[in-house]
Structure formats: structure tokens, C-alpha cells
């Protein structure tokens, strides 16, 4: 991987191959993040295009205080928010910055014994069944996981895509989305919990 300084120099020199490489690498993530703010994939694609236009136009002002990737994603988030406003879409602040306000159980409450149970309050009433490994490694299972991720709310989908599909660190995600550590973790945990449940439902 070239350094950020090398990448910026290549882009400024009009190196189309360098541009194509980062577009290929970042595009899925850029789309996921844009879709937190705008409702359709088509709009998200437009937001990504507008983002690159802004990024290229502002390249002279990139100072390297954050990574190039973080900088590009910050510009994407601003572009997407502006676009969402223009489309008359209100993004509830809580959807990204206060997810804990609306509690969500990782596992359905009726799978646990009642809080006042004599011997085992809050214990498993219906413990997780073993997931057969031969089903987990089947190709259809990967398709099922992709579908489960697609079905998530956009903010959870973006965080799990960046962290667990793309392998970003928690700091990278927090910086790119301007999220607190706690909120990033809440969104990630909810997303992972739902995918695990989808796997259990599918293979057992």
C-alpha cells in the first residue's frame, strides 16, 4: 500500500490507475455509509460521486492530520447529510449518536427465565442450540449472512460492514463516522447479535 502522501501525489499527477485502486477498495464502504443518510442505493451512488468531486477539489488542502481514508469518509458524511436535507429527509440524531436510548435485546427475552425465578433468574430457558459446522461453512450460509446484514437498520449495517466485513479497527470506524466508542460498540453489538440469531434460525 502506498502512503497517503504518495497517494495524494499520484492523484494530483492525474494517475488514473491510483484513483481506480482506491475507488475499488473504498467504494463498498462509502456506499454503506452513505446509505445511513439517504434511502436508496441510487442516491448513495450520487453522494459518493459528489464526495469524490469534493475530495479532488480539496486535495490541496489535505494536511495529513487524519488519514486520507478518514478525511474522505468525513467529507462523505457531510455530503450525505447535506443531500439528505435537500431530499427533505430528516435523519433522527439518535439513529447514529444515541442508539442506546432505544434498548434492543441481543436475544429474545422469552428465551430466558423470569427475573423472579426461584433458582435461576435470568437464566437460559431455551439455550442456544449447537450450530452444525457443516451447515455453517456451506456457500448458502454466506449468502444468508449477506442478507441478514442487508436487512439491518442502515447505521448498524454500516458499522458491521466496516468492522467485520472490511476489517476496519474500532478507531477507524469511530473517526470516519464521528461516533463515540460506546455508540460504535452498541451498534456493532446489535448488528452481530442479529446476524448470530439469523444463523441460528437458518441452520437449526
Amino acid at each position, binding site marked *: 500500500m502506498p502512503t497517503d502522501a504518495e497517494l495524494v501525489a499520484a492523484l494530483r499527477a492525474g494517475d488514473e490507475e491510483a484513483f481506480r485502486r482506491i475507488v475499488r477498495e473504498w467504494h463498498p464502504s462509502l456506499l454503506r455509509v452513505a446509505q445511513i443518510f439517504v434511502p436508496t442505493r441510487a442516491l448513495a451512488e450520487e453522494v*459518493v460521486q459528489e464526495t469524490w468531486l469534493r475530495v479532488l477539489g480539496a486535495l490541496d488542502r489535505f494536511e495529513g492530520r487524519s488519514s486520507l481514508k478518514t478525511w474522505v469518509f468525513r467529507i462523505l458524511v457531510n455530503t450525505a447529510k447535506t443531500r439528505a436535507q435537500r431530499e427533505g429527509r430528516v435523519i433522527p440524531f439518535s439513529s447514529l449518536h444515541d442508539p442506546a436510548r432505544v434498548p434492543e435485546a441481543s436475544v429474545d427475552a422469552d428465551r430466558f427465565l423470569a427475573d423472579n425465578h426461584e433458582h435461576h433468574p435470568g437464566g*437460559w430457558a431455551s*439455550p*442456544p442450540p449447537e450450530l452444525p459446522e457443516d451447515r455453517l461453512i456451506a456457500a448458502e450460509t454466506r449468502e444468508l449472512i449477506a442478507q441478514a446484514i442487508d436487512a439491518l437498520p442502515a447505521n448498524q449495517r454500516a458499522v458491521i460492514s466496516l468492522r467485520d466485513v472490511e476489517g476496519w479497527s474500532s478507531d477507524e470506524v469511530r473517526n470516519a463516522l464521528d461516533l463515540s466508542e460506546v455508540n460504535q*460498540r452498541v451498534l456493532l453489538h446489535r448488528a452481530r447479535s442479529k446476524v448470530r440469531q439469523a444463523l441460528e434460525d437458518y441452520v437449526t
Partner: protein
Amino acid sequence: MIDVEALSCQELVELVTEYLEGALSPADLRRFDEHIGGCDGCTEYLAQFRRTIQLIGTVTPDDLTPEAELALLEVFRSWNSQELGGAPPGG
């Protein structure tokens, strides 16, 4: 010793990502480990959670469609030609 209330299974499942990220307080980490040590259901749950994360890592990110790539290359080319030509057209 402070009397720390034991964690229930229902509470534990909410803490798994914090556990995996090393974000639990020392007291909560101890409650977590003590619970896991004696609970088959939660041991299985934690193993499944880890396996789920591994499997998510095998999902291929959405492809960049050829149309989208072309549109972005156009953005780059028009920016590039303006850069080389100095002032933007009409300005």
C-alpha cells in the same frame, strides 16, 4: 470484599462485544469470566458469537458496478483536465 452481584445469562449476552473488545471494567470482566466458567449455555453463546464474526469476515463486499466505476472515472478525468488547464471552464 464488595459484594458483587452475579451476572445472569440474560445480562451476559448484552456484554459480549464489550468483552471481546476488552472494554469491560475489571469488576465486570471478573463477573463475566466467573459466569462463563460455570454456564454451558453462555459458553456456547460466546463461541457462536465468535464464529459469527469469523463468518461475517468471509462475506464479499458489494461490488463496484462497471457503471459506477465509469461514472467515477469521469469525475476524475474532468477534474484532472481542469487542473491541467488551470482555471475551470467558464471561470
